[in-house]
């Protein structure tokens, strides 16, 4: 990664967001946040609660317009949700009346891709990522982990430039979360996707990302960026947790976050 010439796919340029609290009291969510997302890398954004992680996420997704500054994807400034990024949230947001296959094809359907090729794309994703045999199952009959897998495939089916992950595993139990973290990371790598992961889970950030960006307390700003370098043997999210380097990163980021126990909101 580090040795390759780095081409930036997404740039955040001095993004600031201020909310008008209604009573003339302005709330500054964060100011002057700048960072680059390089092709093929995963960038994790961690921060204490209330630092504006989700607001930043919505700006990158084009669902919110920043007060000042801009986000651009491939040199084009993001304005409005146009499907330039694919995202995956804590809630799987599967349509309960659609089968697994039809949930995966929905993005393609909206784009106007013909039904046969949409089905083929979806089918190959479902087969290669371990949900073969569940094509016609309805979401309610799946486990939380399987549902998130379907949501991830729906995102992948559109083949987006950038994948945004907003705490996608936080509603899952610990074991399922670790397995899914490993799988999603592997899939993103193997497809050469660029991704931004917003999370409050430091372990998740270190195990999934190439770089971890730490935001400060409100008003949020970039406090530090850590390059995560772990060996192949440490890539596995479970094995990783035994490595000394993992623990060093963990301690550094924890220090950056400056969380006062007992006063956390």
């Amino acid at each position, binding site marked *: 990664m580090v040795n390759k010439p780095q081409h930036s796919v997404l740039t955040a340029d001095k993004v600031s967001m201020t909310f008008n609290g209604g009573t003339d009291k302005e709330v500054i969510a964060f100011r002057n946040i700048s960072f680059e997302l390089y092709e093929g890398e995963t960038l994790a954004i961690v921060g204490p609660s209330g630092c504006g992680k989700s607001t930043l996420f919505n700006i990158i997704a*084009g669902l919110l317009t920043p007060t000042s500054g801009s986000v651009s994807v491939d040199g084009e400034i993001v304005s409005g*949700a*146009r499907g330039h*990024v694919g995202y995956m949230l804590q*809630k799987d*947001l599967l*349509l309960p*009346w659609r089968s697994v296959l039809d949930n995966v094809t929905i993005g393609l359907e*909206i784009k106007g891709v013909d039904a046969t090729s949409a089905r083929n794309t979806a089918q190959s994703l479902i087969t290669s990522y371990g949900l073969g045999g569940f094509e016609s199952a309805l979401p309610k009959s799946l486990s939380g982990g399987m549902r998130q897998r379907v949501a991830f495939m729906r995102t992948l089916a559109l083949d987006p430039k950038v994948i945004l992950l907003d705490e996608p595993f936080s509603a899952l139990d610990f074991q399922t979360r670790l397995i899914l973290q490993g799988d999603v990371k592997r899939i993103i790598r193997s497809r050469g996707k660029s991704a931004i992961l917003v999370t409050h889970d430091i372990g998740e950030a270190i195990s999934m990302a190439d770089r971890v960006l730490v935001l400060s307390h409100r008003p949020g700003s970039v406090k530090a960026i850590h390059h995560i370098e772990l060996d192949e043997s440490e890539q596995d999210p479970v094995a990783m947790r035994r490595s000394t380097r993992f623990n060093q990163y963990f301690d550094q980021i924890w220090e950056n976050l400056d969380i006062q126990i007992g006063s956390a909101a």
Partner: protein
Amino acid sequence: MAAKETAIQQVIPPAKIRFRASKFRILWYQVACIVGLFAAWEMAVRSGLAPVYLYGQPSGILQKAITLAKDGELFVHLGLTAFEAVTGFLIGTTLGSFAGLSLWLSDTVARILRPIIVAINGVPKIALAPLIVVWFGVGISAKVAIAASLTFIVALITVYQGTQEIDQDLVRMMRSLGAKRRAIWAKVIIPGSVPWIMSTLRLNIGFAMIGAVVGEYISAKQGLGHFIYNAGALYDLNAVFVGIFCLMILALVLDFILVKFEEKYKW
């Protein structure tokens, strides 16, 4: 902790925890209730405790029903009322559901219409009867119109409410995939409103019957409403009860059909 729960589950099977009686026992109790009620009623009349001219009498009701069924008169009334209610129900519910779904498309229109809808809903529909008679006459179409107008407004309100209750995050997800308003309507709002359309169907069967019977009360030559009204005017209470029980049976049959329909189409 986990071991304890398992132990409890072993001692008390899940079915027992909810205190659910079997289907057969429920049916048995239902029959017992009805038979008991009629027996008590019959005895009260026979012992002279309740005068027959005020309360009717189960044995008399049965006799009356058999007589009316034999000469076919009862079925003419029943068939006509059923036809009026079902036709009004289909027209009103279809148009109302469609209108409710369409209101989602424009928040502006929905907000403009809101007070009008509330006002129309608040008017007891029987107050509209003179208008309906003037517009539709005193024939079948007037009864269908009353049933349709009642069910229309209920469907409109319930289904519109349904579109508003759909998880906004689903709509946001669709937008993020690049979906336009129309596509979101077709792919999320309409299928997502199906449970509300279903509940509107069952509500509306009742309203359609009210519409048909009220229409027949106002002015009619046939139909269960007319039959009950006439029998009441003649103090023939047994005949009144025959009419009421026919309405109950009709309601049960229509509800049964809808439940089967619902089971087939729910997701």
